[in-house]
């Protein structure tokens, strides 16, 4: 019996070590996914009230019905996004996960892996290890997340947080940065979702952990 227990324990331990994504990553990932959808849909609604560029988003992909509803969603989703983001970033830094998973990123490796990905020779066998392109995209999207939150705060409180707003070149500057950060996130999402569908085990890992 003793042997069996030991074996079971070590098997459980091995399984735990094989976890691609610990529980906190999976929970914060899916909360973030929901928050991002809310922020993009409502953000597009707000954009449409006074478009920065000569186009609008189709109303069918916006959230809130009209401007007031869009703002309500945006400034409610903001709390979910920011609180969840702080939990994720804190745990990611404290556990050393970011450093372990995302560092180092060498330009040479990016070139190599990008070429391999385009020619279909990149291996996705081990979802616990990121290739250089993944590292770059994930590190980039974390940074974009910080930028979009800060530029959003700069637009929301250009008087109370004027130093922050100044950092983005004033209110109109923050508005532009916010828009381009959104564009970067949408671009990332398209690649991210296509890759998750092409490599289903990566999606499974984000649900089940392995």
């Amino acid at each position: 019996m003793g042997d069996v227990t030991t074996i079971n324990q070590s098997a459980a331990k091995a399984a735990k070590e094989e976890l691609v994504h610990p529980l906190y990553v999976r929970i914060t990932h899916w909360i973030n996914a929901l928050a991002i959808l809310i922020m993009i849909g409502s953000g597009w609604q707000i954009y449409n009230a006074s478009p920065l560029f000569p186009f609008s988003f189709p109303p069918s992909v916006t959230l809130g019905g009209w401007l007031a509803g869009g703002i309500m969603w945006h400034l409610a989703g903001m709390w979910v996004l920011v609180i969840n983001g702080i939990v994720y970033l804190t745990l990611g830094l404290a556990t050393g996960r970011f450093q372990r998973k995302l560092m180092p990123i060498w330009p040479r490796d990016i070139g190599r892996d990008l070429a391999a990905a385009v020619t279909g020779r990149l291996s996705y066998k081990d979802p616990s290890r990121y290739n250089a392109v993944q590292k770059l995209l994930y590190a980039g999207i974390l940074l974009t997340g910080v930028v979009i939150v800060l530029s959003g705060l700069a637009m929301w409180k250009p008087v109370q947080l004027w130093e922050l707003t100044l950092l983005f070149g004033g209110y109109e500057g923050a508005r532009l940065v916010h828009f381009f950060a959104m564009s970067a996130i949408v671009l990332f999402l398209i690649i991210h979702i296509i890759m998750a569908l092409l490599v289903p085990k990566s999606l499974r890992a984000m649900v089940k952990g392995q």
Partner: protein
Amino acid sequence: MRRKNLNVDAPVLIKDAAKLLPNPSRRLFLRGGASLGALTLLTGCDIVDGPTSERALRVISEFNDWVQARLFNPNRLAQTYAESAITRPFRFNGYYDESEAPDVDEDTYRLQLDGLIDKKQAWTLDQLYALPQETQITRLICVEGWSAIGKWTGVPLGDFLRRIGADLTAKYVHFACAEGYSVSIDMPTALHPQTQMAFKFDGETLPTKFGFPMRIRIPTKLGFKNPKHVVGMAVLNNYTGGYWEDKGYNWFSGL
């Protein structure tokens, strides 16, 4: 909206100022909104734009009022700009067409006062114009997202409130406008040094489209919190909302 000379009498103002929370039927502003949004795919439309989600969103919007009131620093000034930065032509914006802006007769105009104020006699335009005025060039930021820099000249609202013996510990100052618009603001913002009763725009008497004869200019709040054609002012402790706030815009809407 109605194009006529307005002479607002006190009872109307009291009725307006005493208005409490908006009619519940007006709360369902999201219902019937054409869009369901991307979330519909995940959660079903009732959660997205039905009355349940709207109630939840209203609660969070009130929480955001609370957060903003705490974030508001009464000594922090909005950035001021040089003459060269002024946006010309300055954009008209309103819930009515520019041609429908109300014409207020300057001779019969009276600023009516109500609520927690010692000296409630109405003010004529000449009496208001005689008060010490200040000029400031600030950015007006619209709830829609656009912004424009303009120059307003007027009487600091805080000075006026002290002069008329308003209860400065009251929670709200409510404004009633000639054509029916209304808005209420928090007392700390009313007392902010840059909040003014503006009588001039860009050095000229306030034109009709920008709120003749008086606009409340608040550089620390979104544009819709800057009422035009103001004919009544009340100092209150009860929440009275406002034209857009009742339709769903965040009440505090501070910058």
